[in-house]
């Protein structure tokens, strides 16, 4: 049995094609595409808000308070020129245009969602790697994480927000990030613990790869896909928590419009002027729905194995 007989064994496969990377697999999944498109649409609305026939969202004109959607208004600028303008979504109790506020609201809501997701994923990744790899620190870190997780997210957020009364955006972001971090730490830690047992990691140890390189080359790549999926879900839940905080009156003050605080203000006149809750509510629900669909799609496309762990 000569060696060349073995040659026939290798299947003729195009050389150099990477294993289907994060981008390749996810693009084929329907949920991902639909979700991503809608989120981009919302982001575009937020960014292009000034061009979409909107007014200054914080501009108050008491004379025009609580108008039904579709009301027309003629605005007399200082130099006397008159511009006719329609309140597509009506006005709120301070006479501010709900249509503009909803569009601008997209900015803050998405900003919060993305920032919270990015921060909690990165902090969670670092702490998770340490907890997973450095055995003697593991117990200590995980007890603190248990402590943080024991406090329900909303209560923790409420506590932090009341701590920084009036600080607005930053306070709310911190308030929402803190309860999310333990969940990411647990996910990363479980991945690290399982990867450590993989033979190719043990092989790397035997060929003398130092720990830091080991983490970067072999452990980290395996956390990318699950973290993207987890990040998407955190983004959705962050936007939801912000809306709830604003609804309870302890979220971002109403100068910077977010869907949450627009709805919170419209809450007390819900049956007389439902437009204050209806329009931001629809935008809020659809955006979170899109992000959750994106998350589901990513999870099915990228890592069926990790589906269980989320």
């Amino acid at each position, binding site marked *: *049995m000569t*060696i060349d007989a*073995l*040659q026939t*064994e*290798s*299947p003729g*496969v195009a*050389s*150099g*094609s*990477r*294993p289907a990377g994060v981008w390749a697999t996810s693009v084929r999944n329907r949920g991902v595409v639909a979700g991503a498109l809608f989120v981009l649409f919302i982001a575009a609305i937020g960014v292009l808000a000034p061009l979409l026939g909107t007014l200054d969202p914080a501009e108050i004109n008491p004379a025009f308070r609580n108008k039904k959607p579709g009301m027309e208004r003629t605005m007399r600028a200082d130099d006397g020129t008159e511009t006719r303008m329609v309140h597509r979504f009506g006005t709120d109790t301070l006479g501010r245009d709900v249509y503009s506020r909803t569009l601008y609201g997209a900015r803050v809501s998405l900003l919060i969602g993305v920032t919270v997701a990015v921060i909690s994923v990165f902090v969670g990744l670092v702490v998770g790697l340490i907890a997973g790899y450095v055995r003697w620190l593991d117990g200590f870190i995980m007890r603190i994480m248990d402590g943080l997780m024991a406090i329900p997210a909303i209560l923790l957020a409420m506590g932090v927000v009341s701590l920084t009364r009036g600080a607005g955006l930053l306070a709310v972001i911190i308030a929402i990030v803190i309860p999310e971090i333990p969940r990411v730490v647990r996910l990363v830690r479980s991945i690290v613990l399982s990867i450590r047992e*993989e*033979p*190719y990691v*043990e*092989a*790397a*140890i*035997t*060929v*003398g*790869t*130092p720990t830091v*390189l080991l983490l970067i*080359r*072999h452990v980290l*790549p*395996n956390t990318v896909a699950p973290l993207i999926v987890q990040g998407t879900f955190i983004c959705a839940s962050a936007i939801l928590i912000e809306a709830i905080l604003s609804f309870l009156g302890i979220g971002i003050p109403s100068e910077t419009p977010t869907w949450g605080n627009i709805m919170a203000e419209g809450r007390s006149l819900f049956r007389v002027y439902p437009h204050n809750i209806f329009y931001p509510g629809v935008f809020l629900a659809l955006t979170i729905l899109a992000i959750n669909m994106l998350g589901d799609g990513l999870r099915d496309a990228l890592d069926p194995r990790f589906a269980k762990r989320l």
Partner: protein
Amino acid sequence: MRMSDRLPVLSIDGLSVRLPTGSDRLHAVDNIALSVGPGEIVCVVGESGSGKSVTAQAVMGLLPRELKADAGNILLEGENILGCSPMQLRRLRGKRMSMIFQEPMTALNPVMTVGSQIAEVLEIHTTLSERERRKRVLDMMSAVHLPEPSRLINAYPHQISGGQRQRIMIASALALDPALLIADEPTTALDVTTQAQILRLIREMQERRGTGVLFITHDFGVVAEIAHRVVVMQAGRVVESGTRDEILQRPKAAYTRMLLAAVPSLDAPDRAPKSGPVALATERLSKTYGLGLGMSHAVRAAENVDLMVRRGETVGIVGESGSGKSTVARCIVRLIQPTSGAIRIGDVDVAQLPESRLRTYRRHVQIVFQDPFRSLNPRRTVGASIIEGPVNFGLGRKQATDRARELMQLVGLPPEALSRYPHQFSGGQRQRIAIARALAMEPQLLIADEAVSALDVSVQAQVLKVLDDVRRRFDLAVLFITHDLRVASQICDRIAVMLRGVIVEQGPTADVFRNPRHEYTRALFDAAPGRMTQFGAFAVST
């Protein structure tokens, strides 16, 4: 051996099962024909992917959703299975035909008592009262030689051994005296000694009850031990069929001959003792788990292991699962910290070296793992995995890549495959890449921890060939860990037999095989399936 003269229990002809579009071939099973007579054991043998399991599943009507039987028919006592409605099929299963599976660990419902899982088949097909069912279950349990049935009936699967679990499966399958028993690799996951008992049980139950048995396996030893007639399958087609002796002694098809040639024989050739310098010597090496932490019972995985491997010599460690052979290997390569004892590489004891000073000695000892699909990082090219070691020790990327190309050549793979990814290679090829990676470190000692156990027999032979070549070319010391006596007999100069963490016997392979001194070694050799039959004369020249 009674040839089947009466109406066959099972007769399949012209059966084809289509694979979903996009698979590597059109049909999982293509126009096959075979039959099983009452009281006859028909072995279907073939390598993984040959379609033997799909055939079994087709008979039971349990084909996975994406596979369709699109031609031919399967007659169970004259009734065509393919034409049955789900209701009719359910009436037959467990009553007229039943099946036992390969993984004893997962074939029993972990949250139901073993007794109720046997009783379930009675519950479905009979109107016996609770009390009568319990009595029938106890009878079946003693029929399959289970100890203290009255206690065991309330046990849960995780509380009994692999062998006992398989006996429960058999009791459940044969409870209603089905005409046909399908056994899909029932003993593959078991230890050699347990496997022997199960094979004897199946033959005994089958003779007493006149059941026709369709026995699926890839192990020719098992075929030699139990089969009346044999059907050889390759890539979905029947290559050859005939009585056991026709196939084993006088195989007609080239594929059958190739398979038989690949099966290492049990009688080890004499080999001159090696005299090279000692590469590895362990003294009283021990490893105990759960010492601290107040664990109530400490587990002694390895105890006072003394081993010596010289350059150019292959030393084998043989034993059943749980015997501690892998623990010894992992201690030597310092993936785990030994509790006590010395490990001398060259003349330095690395047993208790701290990681920092250990690193320089790591390059001298390399290991090849069992599972080909997890021993290479899926996200890095094969080349990157191979050169990772040398680069760690300061070799420039350019020279490291050149060395990698040489090594690929050496292990029989095209050098330009370096830029490919692990998922583009077969199991056998990956093990060869793993060997290349180990060699890249120019080690003195290479450990093969069950390196070929996961491979088909033919592929196994090729990888062993590569291993032998590199041993001679680099005058390597090789420590070969396996549970397969046949492989050990053909490749090892000296072997050690381990039982529950202790080496019970050690010596030149030929001596140990011809006259084993320890009674456990004797039991181990007796249990090896097909040890009486001589398969094609195939031996590696030393």
